[in-house]
């Protein structure tokens, strides 16, 4: 029996096949799915903000792109994942409301940039992405196959 593990906002978890892992209603946040392509150890992080270093309160490492990815990788390594075999797929980072006056509303964009920069720094290739635009996404990741299923309101389901 396989189950679907749920990851909340500013949260991260590891996942082993045949289980899947999901996070619901990603808006400007980014869902980073990591997977060791050899032993299929997987994990998902739901980050909210790009950079932990500019914020005083950073008790929750899963909240930030930089610390969240590192922590997820660390937890996956406990299950035998090897960093050089790890690949990533990312989704989210939407701009939910287009208001020119509030510049921090483009946090979605900045989240995506920060995630890409951190993955690059760690040498983790991004295999696929579904980011930006102006709608929310629910994602389900299956470490067995590496499929990253993306659902959005009023749009057909897609797999990246």
């Amino acid at each position, binding site marked *: 029996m396989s189950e679907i593990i749920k990851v*909340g*906002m*500013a*949260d991260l978890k590891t996942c082993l096949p045949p289980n899947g892992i999901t996070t*619901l*209603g*990603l*808006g*400007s*946040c980014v869902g980073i799915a990591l997977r060791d392509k050899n032993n299929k150890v997987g994990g998902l992080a739901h980050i*909210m*903000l790009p950079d932990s270093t*500019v*914020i*005083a*309160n950073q*008790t*929750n490492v899963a*909240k930030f792109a930089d610390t969240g990815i590192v922590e997820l990788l660390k937890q996956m390594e406990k299950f035998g994942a090897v960093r050089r075999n790890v690949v990533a797929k990312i989704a989210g980072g*939407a701009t*939910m*409301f*287009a*208001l020119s*006056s*509030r510049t*921090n*509303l483009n*946090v979605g964009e900045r989240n995506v940039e920060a995630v890409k920069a951190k993955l690059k720094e760690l040498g983790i290739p991004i295999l696929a992405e579904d980011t930006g635009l*102006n*709608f*929310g*996404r*629910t994602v389900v990741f299956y470490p067995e196959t590496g499929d990253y299923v993306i659902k959005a*309101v009023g749009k057909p389901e897609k797999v990246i």
Partner: protein
Amino acid sequence: MSDLSLSDVTQNYYDVLKEIGNIGAGNAMTALSQMLGCKIDMGVPQVDLLDFSDVGTAIGGEEQIMVGVFLGVEGDITGSMLFLVEQKSAKYLINKVMMGMGDPGEEFTEMELSAMQEVGNIITGAYLNSLSTLTNLKIYPSPPALTVDMAGAILSVPAIEFGIYGDQILMIQSKFFDEVQIDGYFILVPDVESYKKILTSLGLPV
């Protein structure tokens, strides 16, 4: 960044927001009642300080489709404000505003979305006006932006702003009744600098 961090933003912060929320939501409901030309009863606003992980469950699930009206707040204080209504409630509300001329389907027409945006504009305007009167600060709402999407996705916007200060979000839930019950939520997120101004204007030491 301000030198004020979450460790300083203690219980006071939430108490003040709570009181502002009570007054604001009350005024917003009065405005709605005048607009609809009928009496609307409002339940006691429920103020919740929620962990990010509980936000979705509190409003019927992250995937619950909702209508969100978002405004920037400018003037003496800055921040943002969100008015959130569950899809069916929004549909009912719009139909009422349009005097029964709304579309019967589940989807929203352009006209309905426009009407909803105006409803959001008026009632958040009333909310912010009462805050302005209370604090004697100039508060100007920006034109509203509207979206129909999953609750989790819409709420990520204010959650991210709260996320800068901590791991919880303050939500003021106002239920309003006419023949049916309508669940609406107001979320006010002042920037940290504005929080100081609000406290000072209310005569509280910072």
